């Protein structure tokens, strides 16, 4: 069975403006898919709709995660079912310590899956190990979530959360934006460590640069609210060289 099946997904925002115009995508366990597309084409909208953000109206189509109707679930249920979104713009949460946030999230998911809560030493051990791999200063974890973090620190914090939550399907929305090359490498290595035969990933990006470090199995070109072309990793290089001009003509025609 496929891990994720998106069938003819159509989504509008208020005032009935249609953003997603029939997205079709199947991700099997172990696959890494890249979605590349220009700004404003609807990539973040797709990521938000998958994770259950309010403010979008699904006007057609369906989404199955492990065969279950994803769109019928609350955002927290989707997370417990194995979906993870690394946000393009991670939120700052004043007053909530990162450690408290991580522990609450991990235990909430475990509880929903009928697993026992992590003991404090076990939790601390896991966080310390994963943070070290991502070169995250333990001092940062005592601070409120993302408050005062640099752009790169926020993105690494997203990857840390992914590593701790061990999702079945990870959607990474422009994890490369705002990162210098060293930070990009650290984040990409973090993502690569999580590649496994059971796990699927959708890497959304604007530039081919990230895909030098996270090499995808399949590349999709996203344009004007849907996937207009699918190919192998060489497609990313072609896009980098030629841009999206061809697709603009196609839409105009």
């Amino acid at each position: 069975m496929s891990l994720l099946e998106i069938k003819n997904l159509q989504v509008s925002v208020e005032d009935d403006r249609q953003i997603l115009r029939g997205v079709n995508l199947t991700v099997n366990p172990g696959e890494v898919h890249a979605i590349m597309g220009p700004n404003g084409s609807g990539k973040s909208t797709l990521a938000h709709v998958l994770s259950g953000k309010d403010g979008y109206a699904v006007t057609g189509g369906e989404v199955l995660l492990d065969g279950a109707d994803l769109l019928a679930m609350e955002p927290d249920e989707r997370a417990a079912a194995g979906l993870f979104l690394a946000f393009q713009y991670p939120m700052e949460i004043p007053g909530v310590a990162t450690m408290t946030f991580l522990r609450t999230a991990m235990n909430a998911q475990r509880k929903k899956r009928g697993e026992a809560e992590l003991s404090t030493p076990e939790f601390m051990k896991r966080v310390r190990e994963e943070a070290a791999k991502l070169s995250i200063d333990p001092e940062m974890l005592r601070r409120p979530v993302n408050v005062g973090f640099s752009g790169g620190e926020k993105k690494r914090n997203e990857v840390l959360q992914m590593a701790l939550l061990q999702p079945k399907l990870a959607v990474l929305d422009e994890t490369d934006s705002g990162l210098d090359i060293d930070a990009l490498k650290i984040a990409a290595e973090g993502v690569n460590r999580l590649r496994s035969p059971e796990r699927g990933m959708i890497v959304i990006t604007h530039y081919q640069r990230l895909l030098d470090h996270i090499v995808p199995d399949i590349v999709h070109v996203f344009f004007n609210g849907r996937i207009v072309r699918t190919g192998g990793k060489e497609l990313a290089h072609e896009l980098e060289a030629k841009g999206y001009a061809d697709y603009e003509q196609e839409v105009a025609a």
Partner: protein
Amino acid sequence: MQTTMSKPQSSGPEALTSEAERQIAAAWAGVKDHLPGPAPLTARREAAFRRFEAAGLPHRRVEEWKYTDLRALMRDAKPLAQPPGEIGTVRARAAGAVLAGVDVRRIVIADGVLLKEASDLADLEPGLSIGSLADALGSGDAEVTSRLGAQSPAEKDVAFALNTAFMGDGAVIRLAPGATVARPIHLVFCFTGPVPATVFTRSLVEVGAGATLTLVESHEGPDAFDYQVNTALDLVVGDGATVDHVKIGTEGSAALHVATLTAALGRDVTFRGMVFAIGGAAVRNQLFVRCDGAHTNLMLAGATLLKGRQHADATLVLDHAIGGCQSRELFKGVLDGDSRSVFQGKIVVRPDAQKTDGKMSSHALLLSETAEADHKPELEIFADDVVCGHGATAGALDEDLKFYLMARGIPRKEAETLLIQSFVGEAIDTVAHEGIREALSAAATRWLEARQ
């Protein structure tokens, strides 16, 4: 949200027209010849009652009471409380559980009477004395009578005047200059029943120069019982002293509670005040704070958590008589159901109070469409070289933050709880004493867990 700036206006004499006002007048006639205190105090009680008689209960056309119409809130005035019986005393011994597990010196004041046998009066730290107001008034302690309500703006307030007229008992605490009391003193106020009544309590706390004290008051009583509390505390703080004052309001669900704090602060004082309001049907906390000496550092915080039809008002008058002082006010309200919070903060900077640095902010988090928050900041500045400002916000929980938490697997209610805790946590975190701070956090958490 409403934010208004306005000048106070005085109200003219009015007849006692409401049922409650007539009942208060009748109670006064019955009790005035039996109240404790020497002749000068009797005259002050009489004068205080005359102020009530002239103005009636504060109502919405009295600027300072604009949002808390006491005349409308008091459909009647309950009879004066009787001292607690055997059952009441048993209840009083169990009161103050909000600080269970914190090492404090408990002074129990039940139904308006300081219960010595239920209080920890043994082994007082050097320099500390604790007695009852009834004893001090009965023995004609001139110092006590002269200190009571010596602060002028408070004297004009009718609710406080009623306290002066009717006050019978409370605590009198004195700390000698230079003395340090590490163990917090906990004034445990409770109403024990058995029938709804009115309680007047008055306490006086004098902290000598350079002394250090943490003082907590908690107020409680049975739910669904429309008793009425008028409580006041006069705080006199000497130069260089450090005082923490925490007031925990956990009155029963139908109670009316009006509390006045007057504080006169000397120079180089560090004063941290916290008003934690969670209980009662209608609550008014009024604080009259005056900085009489330079270089005093003041932090006043409030955390209010309301639901149902609860109403809580925090009204603050901060008078900078002398320059070079710093004041910070941070009031946070979490409002669910049809509840309403009021914050009125007035900072007065007198002509001589140059280099005053004052910042006041109040924030309301509205958890329902029907909750309401009113803010009224006022700055009356008569000096030119000052830095004073205020800010107010009111709004719902941030949906994007909530989504971020939920996207990590945290259920909606738990996500809301985390965000609300962090919102009030900022105010609670100003409490210096760790045990008391944790007790307040725990009380906020219980409140949140009880939300459905």
